[in-house]
């Protein structure tokens, strides 16, 4: 039994050490600003299209589904309210983070995993560079900047998708839709909608780096690390989502 637990406990310990060093390096020299900008482009700009599409269609689907439910109570004009709250609190942050996990956790794991199995990580250490400072911290910082931004974009595009349905299918006025959406949102919704992506960014980037740096066993090992990173990041997104939501709910601000 203890032997079975040994490996997961060691993995958690390694992850905590990696996370600690990655955060510590934010405040320590040398800073690799070029790598941060490069990662912002790869992780953020590179994910823009997929995030916009997911945001748009989730807004469209939410408007369609909610309008059907609201019609039973004669409250179709509240569609904007529900779309806005659902997107800002849950769907925007979670769907964007899942897209990032699929695209970037796996991407980071495969890139770092390939470097690991071809001894490039060892070479980096041999040539005077801390791989966590050079590879992990820039990815962490870049993801923490880009994921909240992408979430905001996904929220707005989702609201736009809901508006299209409200106009074309539900025959609501633009004014009614946007007013109900705007009035529905409170500061705590915005706070929740920004805290979640920040936490998800830490999860997505560090899990990708963790599995990448642990890769072993050639190309097969890289493939395994990639899959594990995506699966673990997705599960952790949902677990942390529950924890954050519970915190807001228990404080009576949900």
């Amino acid at each position, binding site marked *: 039994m203890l032997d079975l637990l040994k490996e997961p406990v060691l993995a958690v310990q390694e992850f905590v050490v990696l996370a600690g060093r990655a955060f510590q390096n934010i405040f320590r020299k040398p800073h690799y600003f070029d790598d941060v900008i490069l990662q912002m482009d790869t992780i953020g700009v590179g994910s823009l299209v997929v995030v916009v599409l997911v945001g748009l269609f989730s807004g469209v689907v939410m408007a369609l589904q909610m309008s059907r439910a609201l019609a039973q109570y004669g409250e179709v004009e509240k569609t904007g309210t529900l779309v806005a709250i659902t997107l800002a609190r849950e769907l925007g942050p979670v769907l964007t983070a899942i897209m990032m996990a699929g695209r970037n956790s796996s991407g980071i794991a495969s890139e770092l995993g*390939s*470097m690991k199995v*071809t*001894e*490039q990580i*060892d*070479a*980096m*250490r*041999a*040539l*005077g*560079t*801390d791989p966590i400072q050079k590879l992990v911290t820039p990815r962490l910082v870049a993801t923490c900047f880009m994921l909240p931004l992408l979430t905001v974009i996904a929220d707005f595009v989702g609201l736009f998708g809901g508006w299209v349905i409200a106009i074309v299918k539900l025959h609501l006025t633009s004014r009614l839709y946007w007013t109900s959406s705007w009035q529905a949102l409170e500061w705590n919704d915005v706070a929740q909608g920004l805290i979640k992506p920040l936490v998800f960014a830490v999860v997505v980037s560090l899990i990708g780096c963790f599995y990448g740096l642990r890769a072993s066993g050639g190309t097969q090992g890289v493939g395994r690390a990639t899959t594990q990173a995506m699966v673990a990041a997705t599960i952790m997104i949902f677990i942390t989502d529950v924890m954050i939501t519970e915190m807001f709910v228990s404080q009576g601000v949900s």
Partner: protein
Amino acid sequence: MAETGSPSVLRFENVTVSFDGEAVLRDVSFEAFEGESRVILGAAGSGKTVLLKTALGLVQPDSGRVLVFGKDLGKMREGQLFDIRSRIGMVFQESALFDSLNIEENVAYPLRNQKSIRCPAGEVHGRVEQALDFVELGGTLEKFPAELSGGMRRRAAIARAVVTAPPLVLYDSPSAGLDPITAHTIMALLIKERDMTQTTTILVTYRYQDGNLMANFRYNSKQGRLEPARHSDGPLPCTTFMVLREGRLVFEGDQDRLESTADEYISKFCKHRE
């Protein structure tokens, strides 16, 4: 054999290294001195690469001590190890060039990133060109590693290892997987580097021919090629052979002793003397 009058460059004292409870280096002890060449022979999985990584401080021993330039690596933190590593050049088995950087950036990497080197930015390009000319790869500065052949990548890796002029250079199977002509070219570069800069060289290989070249040939800088050391002026290169078997050091001595050994495993490595 070792020049006991010269300062110690690398010293292993009863070093044992294990991975997942399995020992890959067992109680290994040896000492390499300044200007000496060491050829470490061994079959795949005998612990050759781990030995080099332990010498660099990339792998921590479970027991024993590793001293590089007289300093105990076990007592150093990662930041302090960077200073020691800046005095060691390392050529990894598969070159380990950074895929995302071109050859110029790869070779310039230690100059730009090793704090203790402190190479002025204006000098980096010149030193990179010099190092690439040394390995006869001038003109590949803009190319990426994926655009080069296996032999060219190995040469670029040698340029990266020696660009900082380190006093100790470690080579991990530099001729492995190369055709005989390219392998000879790589070995000629190793000998050229050793003889022109008087570096201490640790060569890990499974090819006895490589060790034979190290022990018996010298680089003639006037003619620009290798020549048998016995035909040239000066003493023979000081070369010590070591043989690893399943993590244990089973032989340490000169080439004559190696070739006269009755041990079946050791003698398998020296059947093909050129």
